[in-house]
């Protein structure tokens, strides 16, 4: 069981939205994390590479800043086995590349623009994630 946290989750969501709006206002860019990550991995070391790397560095630094401000870190529990993390991670990398985005790019930024592609993509990955967890937990009894 995990604790139901509607207020914290809503508040965190507001910050995510604020960051996405700021990145669009200043850099004119979608805050899609898989796209930003792929850009850092595969593009030349130019101005575009630099803002993407800086954005990711800010994300990696965020727990330290949160610890400094609030004095504690949020709870992180990883229920999946290393094998599932490897398979799941690989499928995630393949899927976001073919699907042109993930939860942030399609789910937040694309759906906010009422993009039909993003709405359909989000409904699709949410559905297969629910199905996968159902199979892992209730059919194969993980």
């Amino acid at each position, binding site marked *: 069981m995990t604790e139901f946290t509607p207020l914290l989750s809503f508040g965190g969501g507001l910050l995510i939205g604020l960051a996405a709006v700021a990145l669009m206002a200043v850099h004119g860019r979608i805050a899609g994390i898989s796209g930003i990550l792929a850009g850092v991995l595969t593009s030349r070391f130019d101005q575009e590479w630099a803002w993407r790397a*800086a954005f990711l560095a800010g994300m990696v630094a965020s727990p330290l800043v949160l610890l400094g401000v609030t004095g504690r870190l949020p709870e992180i529990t990883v229920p999946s086995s290393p094998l599932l993390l490897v398979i799941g991670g690989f499928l995630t990398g*393949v899927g976001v590349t073919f699907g042109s985005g993930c939860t942030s790019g399609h789910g937040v930024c694309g759906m906010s623009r009422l993009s039909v592609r993003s709405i359909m993509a989000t409904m699709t990955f949410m559905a297969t994630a629910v199905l996968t967890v159902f199979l892992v937990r209730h059919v194969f009894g993980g």
Partner: protein
Amino acid sequence: MRIVLAFAFGLLFGCGILISGMANPAKVLNFFDLAGTWDPSLAFVMGGALTVTAIGYQLVFRMGQPLRAPSFSLPSKQELDVRLLGGSAVFGVGWGLSGFCPGGLIPVLGIGMGAPLLTAVSIVAGILAARTAIRVTDNSYPAKA
């Protein structure tokens, strides 16, 4: 200045992810577990993020031009295709197995455990493998967004 601002926005985004619970695989997997230990919290993350972004984007697009870039870079593609839906379906399976989506994972790398690093390496391998596969079969890839 663009770099400093991008770092600050990444920081803000990461703090939002951590506070919201999106970085906690136990919480993410429970959100998907409708038939078991369902935790609906993450619907509230989406609610908060979509509210701000939907309104904020409308205001920002009225500026006509971003503050530190020549134009807004928005995907122009409209039509649905097998690549979009198939890829998204595969992503959902991966997310359901690990509990980490890319945005949820990156902030956890700053906390430093073995599991997020293992997942990150696997995601990177998947991205590179898929890009290679697409490039081999499609000369127009990567299309400029």
